[in-house]
């Protein structure tokens, strides 16, 4: 009995220690995080040099757009976690609806960005206006590309989930997609305060 318990504990311990999804994908995710880390450092260095100019330019940003998108991404990450929990609990039919909800939030994020960019461009502000707006458009634009890529990955997972592909014994693909989506969310969690709130 005790040997069974210790074996299970060991397996659980090993399971908790292992990286979710394909371990090699984590090289890609860490490289992405490093790249964005370089973006953030570049922004902060420039911000420190021209703090007043950046703060003045920052007032043109609509924080409510940023806040709505933050909520969208956090809720979408919760939805993806719920999909994973359903798969782990061997309830394959519950996986697809959670992923569908996360995809809808990802698309909503793109919609909000469309309105945000349109408002900026209509008022004559673009990435050549000043250094702050150059960073704003470049960093949020590159992040938006990641949101699009992440949504495509979630759509692939959703298509598989609708066929009941994800369950206790086949979860790696879903974990890989979820890890990428959480990375996209994490990057926004840094990006939002950096661009919209930091004064």
């Amino acid at each position, binding site marked *: 009995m005790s040997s069974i318990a210790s074996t299970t504990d060991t397996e659980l311990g090993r399971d908790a220690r292992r990286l979710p999804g394909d371990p090699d994908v984590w090289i*890609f995710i860490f490289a992405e995080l490093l790249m964005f880390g370089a*973006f953030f450092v*570049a922004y902060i260095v420039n911000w420190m040099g021209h703090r007043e100019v950046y703060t003045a330019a920052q007032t043109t940003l609509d924080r409510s757009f940023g806040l709505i998108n933050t909520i969208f991404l956090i809720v979408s990450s919760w939805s993806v976690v719920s999909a994973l929990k359903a798969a782990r609990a061997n309830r394959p039919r519950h996986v697809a609806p959670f992923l569908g909800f996360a995809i809808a939030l990802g698309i909503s994020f793109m919609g909000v960005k469309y309105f945000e960019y349109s408002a900026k461009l209509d008022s004559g502000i673009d990435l050549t206006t000043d250094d702050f707006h150059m960073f704003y458009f*470049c960093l949020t634009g590159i992040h938006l590309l990641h949101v699009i890529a992440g949504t495509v990955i979630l759509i692939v997972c959703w298509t598989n989930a609708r066929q009941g592909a994800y369950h206790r014994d086949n979860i790696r693909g879903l974990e890989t997609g979820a890890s990428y989506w959480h990375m996209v969310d994490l990057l926004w969690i840094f990006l939002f305060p950096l661009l919209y709130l930091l004064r």
Partner: protein
Amino acid sequence: MDEKLRLRYQLICAWCGPAFLLTFVFFWGFVGHNIPNPSPDLTAEALKSRYLADLGEIRLGFIMSLITVCFYMPWTCVLAAQMRRIEGSEMPVLSYLQLIGGALTVMVVSFSAVFWVVAAFRPDAPASTFQMMTDTGWLIIDLCYCCTTLQMVAAALVGLADKSKVPLFPRWVCYLTIWCGISFFPASLTGVLKTGPFAWNGALSYYIPYFCWLCWFGTASIYMIKEIRRRMTVSEVAMPSGRLAHGAV
């Protein structure tokens, strides 16, 4: 052509990779004064002075880099052949994509360097000509990166599908390759920006993506050379028994 000779040519082609890497960094980067490269924000007169101050070196660097960039071609061919073996001989689309991506990379790099050679060709030309040629060269090399990105992604996808006992590339190299390929995307911003980290002399559009590209190139070369050496060893072990069998007959 017998197996031994074929493998030897393959090995020479694969060693063209490190040869490209070293000569590109040396001639294009250092001798051509591209490390650091000129800022797009320089005035036409300042840019012309920059050329005239090191005219001989800039001419030598870019003319030599136009020769040595061709090391990229045999390397691309040997990678295409290795990919084709993994992908199968029927419709090896990704191998073709890698091949054409590599060939176009050579042309993109060559064209940009030709514009800088043209700029240095007539030192008495107006400063605006120097500026126009420099702009054209940089915008060609920075905006046409997708040929190289597709080359890298194609190589990575085939690498990930490799089910051999000893695969051509480890899986982590394949994922890193995809990332290195897409790290070029910020370079598209060089078409608009003249200052900051996304301009063509900035860290995020120049130093990081180019470093990633060359890192991928070096890493892939190591694994390609290893693969050919493995095949050479297998071939050498198989050869004596083949001769014996032939002799016995």
